[in-house]
C-alpha cells in the first residue's frame, strides 16, 4: 500500500471528526451529544490504528486501545450515569442558537486554516493536511464551552478539544512520547470525574446544572 492511500485514509477520518464536531454544535439533546462524542472518539481510535500501521510506532496501538476503552466506552457511560443521577433536563439551551453556532463554527474553521497555513511546509509527516482539521476541532470545542451553559456540555466541549489535540499530535508527529500520552489520558479521566462531582455539587447547590447561575461573583 502506498503513501497516498494512507494519506487519503487518514484525511477521511480526520474530516469525519471535524464533521462530527459540527454535528455536536448542531445537536439539541444531551444524550445525542454524548453519543456524537463517543462516535468522534471512535474515529480517533481508528485513525490512531491507521497511523500505527503506517508509521510502525508500536506505542500508538496502545493509544488506539486506550481511546477505545476510555473515550468510546467509559467516559460516555460515566457522563450518562451522571446525567441520570442528577436528573437534569435533557434539552440543551444554548446561549447562541444552532444556526448561529454553526456559522461561528465555520468562522473557527477559517481561523484554523489561517493559523495552520504557514506551518504546513514545515511538517514532513503524511498527515500534514490534518493540522488545520485538528485546530478546527480544538477551536470548535472551545466554542462549545463558551456558548453552552450546562456543566456537562461544557465538559463535553473540553473532551472534544482533547480529541482534536490527539488528532493533531497523532498526525503531525506520530504521537508524543508514550509516558506523556499515558499521563494525558490519566489527567483527562480524572478531569472528567472531577467535573462530574462538581456538576453534582452545582446541581445540589443551585437546583440546576445550568452554569448560567454561576454569575454571582463580581466586583
Amino acid at each position: 500500500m502506498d503513501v497516498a492511500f494512507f494519506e487519503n485514509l487518514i484525511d477521511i477520518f480526520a474530516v469525519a471528526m471535524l464533521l462530527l464536531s459540527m454535528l455536536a454544535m448542531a445537536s439539541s439533546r444531551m444524550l445525542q451529544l454524548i453519543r456524537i462524542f463517543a462516535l468522534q472518539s471512535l474515529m480517533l481510535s481508528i485513525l490512531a490504528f491507521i497511523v500505527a500501521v503506517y508509521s510502525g510506532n508500536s506505542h500508538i496501538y496502545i493509544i488506539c486501545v486506550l481511546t477505545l476503552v476510555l473515550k468510546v466506552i467509559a467516559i460516555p457511560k460515566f457522563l450518562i450515569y451522571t446525567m441520570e443521577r442528577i436528573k437534569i433536563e435533557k434539552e440543551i439551551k444554548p446561549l447562541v442558537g444552532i444556526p448561529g453556532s454553526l456559522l461561528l463554527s465555520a468562522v473557527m474553521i477559517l481561523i484554523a486554516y489561517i493559523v495552520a497555513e504557514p506551518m504546513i511546509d514545515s511538517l514532513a509527516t503524511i498527515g500534514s493536511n490534518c493540522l488545520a482539521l485538528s485546530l478546527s476541532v480544538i477551536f470548535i470545542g472551545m466554542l462549545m464551552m463558551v456558548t453552552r451553559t450546562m456543566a456537562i456540555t461544557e465538559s463535553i466541549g473540553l473532551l472534544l478539544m482533547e480529541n482534536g489535540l490527539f488528532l493533531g499530535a497523532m498526525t503531525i508527529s506520530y504521537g508524543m512520547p508514550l509516558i506523556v500520552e499515558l499521563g494525558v489520558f490519566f489527567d483527562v479521566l480524572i478531569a472528567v470525574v472531577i467535573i462530574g462531582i462538581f456538576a453534582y455539587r452545582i446541581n445540589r447547590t443551585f437546583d440546576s446544572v445550568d452554569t448560567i447561575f454561576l454569575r454571582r461573583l463580581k466586583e
Partner: protein
Amino acid sequence: MMFNIELVLLVPAITALLCLVRSKKEIAANISIIGSCVGLIVSVMLCLPIFTDGEVYNYGLWYMDSLSALFLMIISFVALMVSLYSKGYFDFERKEGLLTAKYESYYYFFLNLFIAIMLSACVVKSMGLLWIIIEATTLVSTFLVGFYNNEHSTEAAWKYLIICSVGITLALVGISLVYASSIGVITDTSSALDWPILFAVASQLDPVLMRVAMILIIIGFGTKVGFAPMHTWLPDAHSQAPTPVSALLSAVLLNCAFYSILRFYLISEITIPGFAGTLLLIFGFASLIVAAAFILLSKDIKRMLAYSSIEHMGIIAIGFGIGTPLAIFAALFHMLAHSLTKPIMFFTAGNIAQAYGTRDMESIRGLKEKMPYTAFMLTAGTLAIVGTPPFAIFIGEYLTLSSAIDAGYWWMAAIMLGLILIIFAGFVLHIFPMLSGSTEKEVHEHKSIIRALPFAILLGATLFFGLFMPDQVYDCFEMIVEKVFGGIL
C-alpha cells in the same frame, strides 16, 4: 546522595497520607506542620550543593538546576508558613462549627498533595510530564478552592477548573508543536521532550512551528499564571478559597506556572530571539493595566489581593520580557519577594475576615483598637506589597525599572511607574481607612503564638532581603542568571 529528589517529593506525599489517619484528637494540623518542616529541611539540603558547587542533577525522570532549586525552596518555605497559619485558622473555624474534624483532615490531605505535585513540577525533566503535573495541580486544588462547598466557592472552583483546563489544553497543542519541530533533529523520539536535550538542539528547531507553539504555550500556561485577559478565574478562586489556600495559590502556584513558561522561554529565545520576550511584555503590561484598574475599584479585600498578584506576575513578566541580565535578575528576585510578602497580606485578611465576619472593606473599621496586632501586620504588609523601602518588593520593582531604563525602554519604565503608583494609591485608599474609625460589632482578636509565628517569620524574611542582601544570596541569583539564562543573553 542522601537527600535526593525523590525524598523531597515523598515527604509531602507521605504527610498527605498521614493526615488522613483518623484519631480522637485533631492531629492532622500538627502532622502537616511537622511534615512541612521536614520537607523544608530536606529541600534546603538538596538545594545547597546546587547553589554552592553549581551541581546539576540529571537522572531518571528528574532534572534540576539552580532555577529549579530557587522555585523548590520558595515552595517548601511558603508551604511551611501555610501549614502553620492553617492550624490557627482552622482551630477557629472548628470552634465556630464551620467545619468538622473529618473535613479538616481532608483539607490537610489535599494541601500536602497539592504541595507535593507543585514540587514535582520544578524538578521534572520532560516538558510533556511538566504539562501533566501543571494540569494535576488544577485538579487537586479545585477541591481546595471549593472547600467550603457553598454557592460562591462552588462557582469559583468550577470557573477555575474549566478556564484553567481550557488554557492548559492550548498549551499542550503548543507542546506537541514543539515536539513536531524537533523531529529530524532529535533521533531518540522517546526523550525528545526532555528539557536538556531540547535546549541543546534549540538552534536547530523549526522557527515557524516554534513561533506558533510559543504563542499557544504562553497563552496556555499564562492562563494559570493569571496574565490578563485570561485572569478571570483568579480573583474568584483567590477570594473564595480558605485563606491559607489563597496564600498558597498566590505565592506558589502562580510561580509554578511561570516556571513552565520560563523553560520554554529559554528554548524559544535561542530558536527565535526576542519573540517570547515580546509576548511576555505584552501580557505583562496587559496584566498591570487590568490589575491597576480593578484594585482601584475593588471592595472585597481578598479580591484586591488577588489583583495585586496579577500585578506582580505582570511585573515579573516584564522583567523577563526585557531580557537583559539585570532584568532577569530583577524578575527572579521579584518572584522571591512576592512569594514572601503576599502570604502576610492574605493571612492578615484571613484574621480580619474571621473576626469581622466580612471581607467587605467598607464595613471593616476600627482595626487599630480592636485588633492592634493584626492592624500592625496589615500596615507593614501593605507597605511591603506596594513596594515601599525597605521591603524586598521595593528592590525587585526598582531593579526592574532601572533595567528597563538601561535597556533604553524609557516609555516602558514610565508607564510601569505610573501604574505602580496607581496601585499604591488604590491600596492606601482601601486599606488605611480600615485602621481608624469605630465599629458597632463585637470584635475579638484571636491571639496565639501559632498565629503570630508565620507573620513574624515572613515579615522578618522580607525585611531581611530588603535591607541586607547577603553576598551568598546575591551570588545564587547571579549564578541562575549566568548558568541558566547565560545561553540566551
